[in-house]
């Protein structure tokens, strides 16, 4: 076990993948000499050369589109989109090319491409640097979408994503890049829990609290605070957003009877809606209350002086937990 930051854990995972498979290569803007704007790829070009850690021109569609061609040739490209809000120029290549090529070629052409995207807010950045676009990709057939919430998961899941024969959009919670945690670098990704599997972070019996990415830590803190008030919250880290491991969530809700989902992305058409609908379909008669969503608002990502109002925090999550439990909360009296 080694104590390391989230960013370092990804770096270490990338290094292992580069070591283990000569077909793995990294592409992106500023990832080589600079080591990435968040230093996630620090030192990798020096050690693996500029043909395996490629500084690309500033063209996101170009980065993903050339990765498609490299995958056609048998490579496993790992591309970095510098910030969440810059992924849209590559949208066609991701949605129409990366996601569909296996289907269109009737299984002949595999697209083992990993698209790394730092996402989420809370770092005081200007616009386009703090977005949560995961639902666009979770909605796209052919893609897998995952997001790690701990340094250990970051280290393991990046390797699992790279070795996956399907394309994976890998969202990295950028405000957690500098959080530290214990990482077992010797852990074999093949024997670790698969990236498609959700994880129960905190056992509980009164309410199920589903989170992913940057909000898993917030959810865990909320569970600790709730425990002080005698409420037992079971926190689930989804890890995979497409597909969602509903079996794990369902098992928890069958136990607690109550469901709260939280994410930074806007509410409407988001992952929370999918989780709420699917869990309601699967175990309606085990639910004691309607599922509650605590999410960002349906607004363009706001400027940094007000972003704290947009982002779900510990208190808003606890307010949602109170709603699920039928305890006094900010909307008491409004609900039917």
């Amino acid at each position, binding site marked *: 076990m080694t104590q390391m930051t989230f960013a370092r854990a990804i770096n270490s995972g990338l290094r292992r993948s580069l070591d283990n498979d000569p077909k793995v290569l990294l592409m992106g803007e500023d990832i080589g000499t600079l080591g990435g704007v968040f230093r996630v790829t620090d030192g990798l070009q020096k050690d693996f050369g500029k043909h395996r850690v490629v500084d690309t021109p500033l063209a996101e569609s170009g980065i993903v*589109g050339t990765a498609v*061609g*490299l995958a056609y040739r048998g490579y496993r490209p790992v591309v970095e989109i510098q910030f969440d809000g810059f992924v849209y120029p590559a949208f066609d290549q991701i949605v129409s090319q990366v996601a569909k090529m296996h*289907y269109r070629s009737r299984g*002949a052409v595999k697209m083992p491409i990993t698209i790394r995207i730092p996402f989420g807010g809370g770092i005081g950045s200007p616009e386009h640097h703090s977005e949560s676009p995961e639902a666009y990709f979770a909605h796209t057939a052919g893609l897998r979408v995952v997001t790690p919430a701990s340094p250990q998961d970051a280290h393991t899941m990046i390797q699992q994503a790279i070795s996956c024969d399907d394309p994976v959009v890998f969202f990295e919670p950028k405000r957690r890049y500098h959080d530290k945690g214990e990482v077992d670098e010797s852990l074999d990704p093949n024997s670790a829990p698969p990236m498609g599997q959700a994880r129960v972070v905190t056992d509980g019996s009164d309410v199920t609290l589903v989170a992913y990415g940057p909000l898993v830590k917030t959810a865990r803190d909320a569970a600790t605070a709730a425990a002080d008030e005698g409420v037992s919250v079971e926190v689930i880290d989804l890890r995979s957003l497409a597909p969602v491991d509903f079996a794990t969530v369902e098992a928890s809700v069958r136990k607690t009877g109550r469901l709260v989902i939280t994410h930074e992305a806007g509410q409407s058409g988001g992952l929370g809606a999918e989780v709420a609908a699917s869990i309601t379909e699967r175990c309606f008669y085990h639910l004691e209350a309607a599922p509650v969503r605590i999410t960002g608002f349906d607004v363009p990502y706001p400027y940094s002086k007000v972003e704290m109002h947009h982002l779900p925090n510990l208190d808003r999550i606890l307010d949602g937990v109170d709603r699920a439990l039928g305890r006094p909360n900010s909307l008491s009296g409004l609900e039917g």
Partner: protein
Amino acid sequence: MHCAQFLPRWLYHLNIVSMVTINRGKGAREAGKRRYHESCRGMVTRRQKVAATVVTDDAGQGGTIAGQDNNAGRRGGAGHSMVQLITPTGERVSHPEYDPWVRDVSDEQLCSLYEDLVVIRRIDKEATALQRQGELGLWPPLLGQEASQVGSVRSLRDDDFIFPSYRENGVAYCRGVDLADILRVWRGAASGGWDPYAVNMAIPQIVIGAQTLHATGYAMGIQNDGADSAAIVYFGDGATSEGDVNEAMVFAASFQVPLVLFCQNNHWAISEPVRLQSHTQLVDRGAGFGIPSMRVDGNDVLAVMAATRVALDRARRGGGPTFIEAVTYRMGPHTTADDPTRYRDPNELEDWAAKDPIGRVHALLDRKGLFTAEFEAGVRTKADAVARELRAGCVGMPDPEPLDVFKHVYSTPNSWLDRQQDHYSRYLASFGDPAGATQEEGAR
């Protein structure tokens, strides 16, 4: 008035226009010139202006290289010269720079190229007929572009990799793609017709220009592997406006990858003329990225071959990408769902019919005494046989199974999709026999 104006629309679809072309000689070209003067004299509509300037693009003038085209004229500059080795009247003209690249093409090979051109036109005609008969949902004819496709694909090695758009069905034929597989997509029986690795040719790209980036990435892979093969990507004049094509040229130039950017300027992107896409010659776009660029008569199979060989040689030697603008013309509709009479002057079609890619090789073979009755009959027999095989492969293609809709979305198990498939299977089973249920649905 010109006879082309009386050509009924069905002629476009059935490709009979080409027959007119083959028998057209010098007289027709002169008629074209006359029209130019007429249109300059009188009131000229915008569309007639296009037709008029296109005439100045006559590649066959005096058996020399045509220097100007409509874009060059508008630009007021000299423009790139257009490489031509066979004039529209079938004269083999010499070109010191490009002759050496096709010196090895024997009479026998020339006959074989002719056969390719004719067979491809026959495939195109048969597929159009199959669409009209309801056997295909759609077909994108390549009528008029045969030489661009044959000249380029016949220059490739087996280990070169092709990234086509949806109109490169002539390329697919020459590459050895199974005839039924060419039609699979257009019949709606699959989203991709063939295994790309079996023929080193990607499945057709529908999103305009997206494949240029794939080819560039593939060429990056070739470079990493230290191989001496190349990638070639086909796209059209409209595609040169797409961001992806421009990004591909940035990447290709920056990394100096072994890539041939083969642009068939067929003058029309559905209803939009090429001048709407570019204020300069398209070849200038490649040059603007620092990519060596050539402008070639795309209706001249030999010139296309020479240019492609130049580009491939550069790629194999580590000299990086090449841009080729093959100046050709889409004589048919964009697809069988299109109606070019709504936007195109029939005079323009007639002008290009006089520059037909097949007619000039026919004339050249004739001059050489190679176009014997026996040869002609042999080519026709071959074309008819291919058409029969194409038709049989099309109508005999088994329909996909209902649950095929779920196949190949992922290569690994997916809990969401597996559940949906399971539920739909149960739904089908609730009718008793899944196949029966589908038939009943179809009958309604």
